[in-house]
């Protein structure tokens, strides 16, 4: 993709190709299978048969190299923060991050006194979607992921960005 990306002026051909690409990306955002705390249980429930993330094209991948979306599910401690950052860096572009639960969005219950907790994962990596809740129900996570799909669909990967 690197050869074509951001190379073309805005015209009809590019418009259609853009839509094709963003449509295909948005309908198969494979997510990275890892959890840091209790939110991971809800993430697993969302991926299991009752809520079935696969029907919106989301398949868990065990390697960051194969994943498009990182769902940060749970408390991120300082010890984990460097590892989360490293994992994010190992993911291939295009990559997206969903911060799931109040710990990952803001530090949650450790907001004030947790000396060892990162106050929101957006301190170390860029976040696209925030899902509040402690923990959020699978429905909430699914809504967050649908919002992410909408966002991906809006993207026009081939069009040259106006400076």
């Amino acid at each position: 993709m690197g050869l074509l990306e951001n190379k073309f002026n805005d015209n009809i051909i590019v418009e259609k190709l853009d839509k094709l690409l963003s449509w295909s990306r948005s309908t198969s955002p494979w997510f990275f299978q890892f959890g840091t705390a209790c939110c991971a249980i809800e993430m697993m429930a969302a991926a299991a048969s009752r809520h079935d993330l696969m029907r919106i094209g989301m398949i868990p991948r065990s390697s960051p190299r194969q994943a498009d979306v990182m769902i940060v599910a749970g408390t991120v401690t300082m010890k984990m923060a460097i590892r989360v950052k490293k994992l994010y860096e190992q993911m291939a572009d295009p990559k997206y991050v969903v911060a799931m639960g109040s710990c990952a969005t803001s530090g949650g219950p450790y907001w004030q006194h947790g000396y060892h907790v990162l106050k929101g994962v957006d301190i170390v990596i860029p976040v696209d979607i925030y899902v509040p809740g402690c923990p959020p129900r699978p429905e909430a996570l699914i809504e967050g992921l649908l919002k992410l799909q909408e966002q991906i669909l809006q993207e026009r990967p081939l069009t040259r960005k106006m400076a």
Partner: protein
Amino acid sequence: MTSERDKLISELVLKALDGDLDSLNAVEDRVLRAKAKAALVKAKKDPKAYKAQFSAVESSTEKSGQKELTEAEKKISELVLKALDGDLDSLNAVEDRVLRSKAKAALMKAKKDPEAYKAQFLAVESSTEKLGQKKLTESEKKISELVLKALDGDLDSLNAVEDRVLRSKAKAALVKAKKDPSGYKAQFLTSANTDLNPIIEAKKTVAKIETLNSKIKKLSMISFPGIILNDDDELFLQVSPVNWYSFAGWLKSEPSLAFDSLQCQTGFDVGDEHLEARYNLHSMSHDHYTEIRIRVSRKEPCIPSVEKVWRIADWFERETYDMLGIDFSGHRDLRRILLPEDWEGWPLRKDYKVQETYHGIVIPKMKEGWE
């Protein structure tokens, strides 16, 4: 006329319920017999209720007969009880043949399960005797209560007793009890009240641990004089860190203690100038517990590791080291267990200051305006 007939029927039915069907069958009056049989069928559905209903209606002569019977039974039970205690002569000396033979038969039966028989018939004994016995046990109970109170420091309630005899007895018991207070406590807290009172149960446990702690102290005098720093009326043993490793090994190997399991090891910042490590020990074979506390100064927090004595202490001590910075000397792998290895400071100390940054990530100070 009818009422007499009813009475007759009830008598027959009662007899039949007790196994004597012949007297019912021997009735010549057909109507009466049929009615009695019908009543019997009914009565058999709930014999107890029937008996209760009709034995009250029974004639007075029969009642007195029953009383005599119970008296004879009482006599029999007395004789049997005596015989069970070894006094056969009084049974043999009974002149009434019938009574004697009955008593012998009862004795044969009773010998199969003497305890149950005693328990059953001691309750039947004459009321005067019962009262006497009850008083005795109650006064004993009272004495033990007073002594227990006195041992806990409350002498006033003993002195306030008006009954002279009781007071002097209680004082004598107190003198005796003072020689071995924990033994006395253990004995009477078990015997005083058998019903499961939670307070008494807790006191029992306390007494058990106190006894064990004083035992450990006595035993340690030989090879570890002065290692236990506190008095034995507390529920833990304050131990000096100097000889702790060999003392721990001794606690595990001494057959009468045999503390084979370290259930928990944790640490405390006790404020002022000290840190404290606590060890909860349990013995599988003796089923007893104790707690060891070791206090060290904040400046040089060094305690010998017992990781080689109880292998579980490996991770326990690593956690205590991680949180409080107590240096367990002799530990073969003393690293932080929860926090990253390059973390600064000991978080569970009272004077802990959070570091400014960690690997370039700024650690925010306490946020304001949130609560």
